[in-house]
């Protein structure tokens, strides 16, 4: 293996690869289009057009065709087929697939190198955030004054469904995607992920799912919000079929990615890297991945049942056929609440890591941090019915679910203890990652306190289904997770690009987004407290001022995010150069050169202590 590094340096494109040499994102789109057309053609000609479910059957056939064709066109099936037929990939084939010597073209291909996949995830996150953000701006523009003036209600309802789902997908991958792939294997001392081809598969499956989700806007008629409420979803048009299929495909992506991260950490750690010496971010990533493996099957299950209801006239969720909307709500929230922590935990893990490096101190009470993250993951699977307090389902379970929900505040409180304890009396290096981390702390408090109100049933009976809830979870997702994600981006950006994220633009972006979040969502709390329900396309005159302020705040957030985008683009190739270890950190990803060579390590390191010994580092240098 010692020749690996030299091979990278010579950067010759290996001879292997076969058919994979000709495949990229373009062939994937063409393949997806062709097979989708084939499936549409077959469905169109062989299904009964007088059937009530005809259009849904055709839509589902088409979407299945799309994803199969997309997988074919990107080359996902080549290696398994070769393995089955006894002509397994050679070393040269694998090196070709890993992208050796292929420059930027490898970012458009089924490339197995975990660092390429990490960068692809950064881009995918930005694409999803951008698309969801445009919809958010459209929604806020509609709500700037009362009455329908910008888009009609039908379009507006589609916007809120697709905005919600795009942002959920974006945040699920925002930290775990880029950094779970780029840095976790290096942090563990591994040359790649446990299953490099599955890694590429998870990324390209996400691309296929995102394409389906964006298509829903074009085919339209979404009536069900992002939670796919039944029975209202039954009234939606074929956009609903695309929406549900996008979710099913997405869960395939997260399942594959989650298994891969867990297997990598469990089996690929280098000598001496005991679990207690793992960088804390690795814990955040694998606990979130494990929680995702529990949660996301409910997601695909509930959407599959919705599709079967729509295409085969079954009645899982249709009351007139003996089904129950409450069944849909239970299954959805069995996924939906753990999912919040699938989103949050990688960000929290990253912030623990960043607070330690930036304050030049060990993570305060590492074991408390691991226990809090694990405890939160465990509790989060027992709280789902707090989303259903006002539905009328099982009123006698209100007390027990209130108990589990309020217990959440104990591990969440420990997160603050660990962060504050790590910063306590440190020498805090005020760089971009640190600044965004402080933003997280400020916003996460508001998210937590307003969560306590909602956990209490008498209060929830007032606040449920209002803008108060919307503001609460936006403080969680935008105020907290997005701030954590940007902090992580600023922190690991030099490892990816060899350059710092522009400090000046980053700070302008921080202040715009931070102020924008307060303006937008504090005003949204006011709308909710005054009595404005969620998902309104228009509202009474008494909500006029708070909605106007919210819209102005939303524009400020957009300005800040555009500045951030500008910072990323200008810094990628032209930023201030950073060495291999610009933050003088001790974990393994900073010990390898930048750009990180294929297979990361020339010789695998041996670990003798955890990465938090800053005192000793001073002695060494």
């Amino acid at each position, binding site marked *: 293996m010692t020749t690996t590094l030299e091979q990278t340096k010579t950067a010759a494109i290996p001879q292997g690869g076969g058919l994979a040499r000709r495949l990229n994102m373009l062939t994937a789109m063409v393949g997806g289009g062709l097979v989708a057309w084939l499936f549409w053609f077959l469905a169109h000609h062989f299904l009964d057009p007088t059937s009530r479910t005809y259009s849904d059957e055709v839509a589902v056939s088409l979407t299945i065709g799309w994803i199969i064709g997309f997988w074919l066109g990107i080359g996902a099936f080549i290696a398994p087929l070769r393995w089955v037929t006894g002509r397994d990939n050679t070393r040269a084939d694998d090196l070709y697939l890993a992208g050796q010597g292929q420059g930027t073209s490898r970012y458009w291909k089924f490339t197995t190198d975990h660092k390429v996949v990490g960068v692809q995830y950064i881009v995918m996150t930005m694409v999803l955030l951008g698309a969801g953000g445009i919809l958010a701006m459209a929604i806020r523009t509609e709500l700037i004054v009362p009455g329908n003036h910008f888009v009609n*209600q*039908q379009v507006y309802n589609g916007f809120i469904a697709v905005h919600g789902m795009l942002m959920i997908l974006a945040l699920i991958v925002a930290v775990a995607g880029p950094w779970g792939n780029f840095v976790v294997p290096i942090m563990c001392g591994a040359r790649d992920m446990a299953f490099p081809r599955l890694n590429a598969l998870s990324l390209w499956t996400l691309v296929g799912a995102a394409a389906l989700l964006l298509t829903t806007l074009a085919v339209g008629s979404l009536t069900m919000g992002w939670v796919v409420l039944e029975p209202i979803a039954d009234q939606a048009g074929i956009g609903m079929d695309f929406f549900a299929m996008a979710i099913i495909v997405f869960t395939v992506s997260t399942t594959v990615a989650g298994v891969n991260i867990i297997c990598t950490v469990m089996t690929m750690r280098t000598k001496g890297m005991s679990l207690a010496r793992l960088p804390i971010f690795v814990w955040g990533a694998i606990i979130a991945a494990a929680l995702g493996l529990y949660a996301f099957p409910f997601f695909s299950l509930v959407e599959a049942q919705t599709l079967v209801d729509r295409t085969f006239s079954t009645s899982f969720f249709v009351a007139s056929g003996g089904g129950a909307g409450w069944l849909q709500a239970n299954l959805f929230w069995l996924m939906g609440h753990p999912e919040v922590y699938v989103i949050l935990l990688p960000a929290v893990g990253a912030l623990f890591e960043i607070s330690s490096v930036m304050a030049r101190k060990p993570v*305060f009470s590492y074991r408390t941090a691991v226990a809090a993250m694990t405890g939160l993951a465990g509790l989060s699977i027992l709280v789902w019915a707090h989303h259903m307090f006002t539905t009328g389902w099982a009123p006698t379970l209100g007390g027990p679910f209130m108990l589990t929900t309020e217990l959440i505040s104990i591990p969440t409180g420990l997160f603050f203890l660990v962060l504050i304890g790590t910063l306590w009396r440190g020498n*805090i290096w005020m760089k971009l990652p640190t600044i965004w981390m402080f933003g997280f702390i400020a916003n996460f408090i508001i998210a937590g306190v307003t969560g306590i109100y909602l956990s209490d049933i008498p209060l929830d009976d007032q606040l449920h289904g209002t803008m108060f809830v919307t503001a609460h979870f936006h403080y969680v997702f935008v105020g907290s997770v997005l701030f954590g994600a940007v902090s992580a981006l600023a922190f690991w950006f030099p490892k990816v690009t060899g350059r710092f994220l522009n400090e000046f633009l980053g700070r302008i972006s921080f202040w715009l987004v931070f102020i924008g979040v307060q303006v937008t969502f504090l005003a949204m709390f006011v709308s909710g407290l005054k009595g404005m329900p969620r998902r309104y396309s228009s509202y009474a005159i008494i909500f006029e001022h708070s909605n106007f302020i919210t819209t102005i705040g939303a524009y400020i957030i957009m300005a800040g995010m555009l500045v951030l985008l500008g910072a990323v683009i200008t810094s990628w190739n032209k930023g201030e150069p950073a060495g291999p270890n610009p933050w003088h950190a001790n974990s393994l990803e900073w010990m390898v050169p930048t750009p990180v060579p294929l297979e990361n390590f020339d010789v695998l390191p041996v670990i003798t202590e955890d990465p938090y010994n800053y005192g000793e580092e001073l002695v060494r240098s």
Partner: protein
Amino acid sequence: MSTSTNKNSYKGLYWIWAALTVVGILIGLYAPAWLMPRSMSNNMHLTVLTMVVFSVAAAPVAAGVYATALFALRHWAHKGDDVPAPGPQVRENAVVVTTWLVVSTVLTVFLLIWGLGALAVDNGSNGKNPLVVDVTGQQWVWSFSYPGTHVQSNELYLPVNREVEFRVTSVDVTHGFWIANMGIQVDANVGTITTIHTTPDKLGTFNIRCTQFCGLNHAFMVTEGHVLTSQQFTSWLASQPQRA
């Protein structure tokens, strides 16, 4: 940066903490009643009170975190672009972790006990001959009927100081029946009747808005309700056309 700290150097932290706690408590005491709709029932009094109590309880905790973050920015931020020297290499502090855990558990248990108590009061019926109102949601109107009277209306009329039992259902999709002035909310589900109680104790008009997304005109599924004196209510009931 001196690593030896005498106790006095944290004075600033305590002052910020105290000041922010006072601000938090003031917001907690006044903001709910100021921002929320006029309270017109026993449930809504309890809702506002709960919000005040929780806000006051949360104020010192939130203020503590904010104060520490601000204090850290003021006193522990490293000036200059060079790499800061290592801070104190503290890895564990059992006393701090235990104290934090005990305090947060005590607070959580307090919230839970308050919540369970409030829940018992909130959902309780005093059983004294409640007025029954059948509530039906359909896209995108509410209709109310009064069993035993054949009266049906698209606006809700209630007598003051008499318990009401709403029996809520829907004929098409799920709707959310919410009286913001009375702190009560329950979904209207197809094929199921959900019940909810309240006792209006103020005269006046209120809005009923749908809180469960129900399609195209969800935002316009609004109607008015009125709390009347019992004489007014009786005469309103008598004046309505009787549906066979």
